[in-house]
C-alpha cells in the first residue's frame, strides 16, 4: 500500500463525488428541477391571478414568498434520497463510503438546488408582484441565503427519514413543518424588516438566530444520519 491520503481528504473527495454524481444524474433525468420550477411558476401565477389588479400589502407578500419557498422545497428536496431508495441504489452507495460523506454530499446538492430555486422564485416575484419592494437589499440577500441553507439542512435529514417510509409524498411536509417553523417565522420577520427599510444592524438578532439554527440542525443530523442510513 502506498502512502495513504489523510482520512479527511478522502472523505472530502468522497462527498464531493456524491454531489457530482447527483448533479450529473439530475441533469440527465431532471426529476427535481422540473418539479421545483413548475411548482414555483404555477404558485406564483395563481397568486397573480388571485390578486388581479389589486396589490396585496407588503407584509402579506413577504409572508407568501416563504410559503412558496417552503412548498417548493417540499416538492423537490426529498428527491435525492427517495430516488436512491426507490431504485435500490442506497445499498450501492452504502458499500462505497461512510454515512457522513453521504450526508454532506446530499446536503450540498440540496443546498445548490435550494439556492437556485430561491433565486428563481425571487426573480419571478420581483417581476410579477409589483407590491413587493425591498428597501434594504443587504438584509434581504442574507435572509434568502441563510434561509436556503436552513431549509436545505432540515429538509435533507427529513428526506433521509421519509425515504425509508411508505407514504413518502404526504409524510414529507407533515414531518418538516414543525421542524421548519422557527426558521420560516424568522425568515418572514427578517424579510419584513427588509421591506420596511430597517438598517442592517437591526436584523443581526435574526441572523444570529438563523446561523445557530443551521449549526444545530447540521450537527445533530450528521450524528443521527448514521442511524437512519444503516438498516
Amino acid at each position, binding site marked *: 500500500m502506498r502512502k495513504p491520503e489523510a482520512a479527511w481528504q478522502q472523505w472530502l473527495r468522497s462527498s464531493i463525488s456524491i454531489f457530482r454524481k447527483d448533479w450529473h444524474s439530475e441533469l440527465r433525468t431532471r426529476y427535481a428541477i422540473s418539479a421545483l420550477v413548475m411548482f414555483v411558476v404555477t404558485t406564483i401565477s395563481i397568486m397573480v391571478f388571485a390578486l388581479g389588479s389589486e396589490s396585496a400589502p407588503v407584509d402579506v407578500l413577504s409572508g407568501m414568498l416563504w410559503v412558496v419557498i417552503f412548498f417548493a422545497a417540499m416538492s423537490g428536496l426529498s428527491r435525492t434520497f427517495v430516488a436512491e431508495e426507490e431504485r435500490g441504489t442506497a445499498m450501492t452507495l452504502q458499500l462505497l463510503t461512510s454515512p457522513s460523506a453521504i450526508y454532506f454530499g446530499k446536503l450540498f446538492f440540496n443546498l445548490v438546488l435550494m439556492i437556485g430555486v430561491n433565486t428563481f422564485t425571487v426573480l419571478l416575484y420581483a417581476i410579477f408582484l409589483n407590491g413587493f419592494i425591498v428597501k434594504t437589499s443587504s438584509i434581504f440577500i442574507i435572509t434568502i441565503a441563510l434561509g436556503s441553507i436552513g431549509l436545505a439542512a*432540515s429538509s435533507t*435529514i*427529513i428526506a433521509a*427519514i*421519509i425515504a*425509508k*417510509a*411508505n*407514504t413518502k409524498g404526504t*409524510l414529507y411536509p*407533515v*414531518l418538516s*413543518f*414543525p*421542524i421548519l*417553523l*422557527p*426558521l420560516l*417565522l*424568522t425568515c418572514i*420577520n427578517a424579510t419584513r424588516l427588509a421591506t420596511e427599510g430597517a438598517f442592517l444592524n437591526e436584523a443581526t*438578532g435574526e441572523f444570529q*438566530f438563523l446561523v*445557530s*439554527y443551521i449549526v*444545530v*440542525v447540521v450537527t*445533530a*443530523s450528521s450524528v*443521527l444520519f448514521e*442511524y*437512519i442510513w444503516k*438498516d
Partner: protein
Amino acid sequence: MNVFKTVLFVWMTAVIVLALGLPMVAQPSTWYQFPIIPALEEKARIMFFHVPMAWLSVVAFVSSMVYGIKYLRKKNLDDDVRSASAAGLGFLFCFLATATGAIWAKFSWGTYWNWDPRQTSIFVLLLIYGAYFALRSAIEVEEKRASLAAVYSIIAAVTMPFFMFIMPRILSSLHPEPILNTEGKVHMNTTMLIVFLSSLAGFTGLYFWMWRLQVRIQTSHLNRIN
C-alpha cells in the same frame, strides 16, 4: 403495585375533591379557603388540572426522547415500546392541556384561541406528536421504525427551543408566568399551593402508572403476534 394503585386512587380522589370543593372567598380567614381571583372566580380552579396536563405533555415528550436515545444505543426493542407509549400518553395530555388552556383563555382573555406564544408552542408540540405517529405508521419493519422515530424526536427536540425563543419576539404573551418563573415567586396562598402541588404529584403518578400499563399492553400485543 396494588399498594401504589390504592394510594394513587385515594390521592387523586382527594385532589379532585379539594380542588373543586374547597371554598373560594374574598378574604381567606381559615386554612381551607382559597382567595378569590377577580374576574376568574370559581373558574380559576381549572388551573389545578390545566398546569399538570401541560407539565405531563412535556414530561412524556422528554421520556419518549430519552428512551429513543436509549434504543439507538442499545437496540433493544423494549425501549422503543416505552418510547412510543410515552409519546402516546404525551399526545393525550398535550391535547387535554390545549383544550383546558383554550377554556381558560376564554375566561381570562375573552377568546378561545389567540395564537398566543404559549398556545402556538403547544400547538407545535401537538403537530410534532402527530408527525411522530404518522411516521411510525408508515414504516413496517419494527427496528427501522424504532430508529427513525427516535431520530425524528431528537431532531424535533433540538429545534423546539428555537421555537420557544422566536415566538415571544413575534407576539408577547398574555399567559401567566410559569410556576417556575424568573422571579422565583409563587403567586398562590399556601392552601392553593398545597392542592396545586398535590395535583401535580398525583397526575405525575397517574402518568407513570398509565405508562407502565401501556408498555405492558403493547408488549403482550406484540408477543401475541409472534
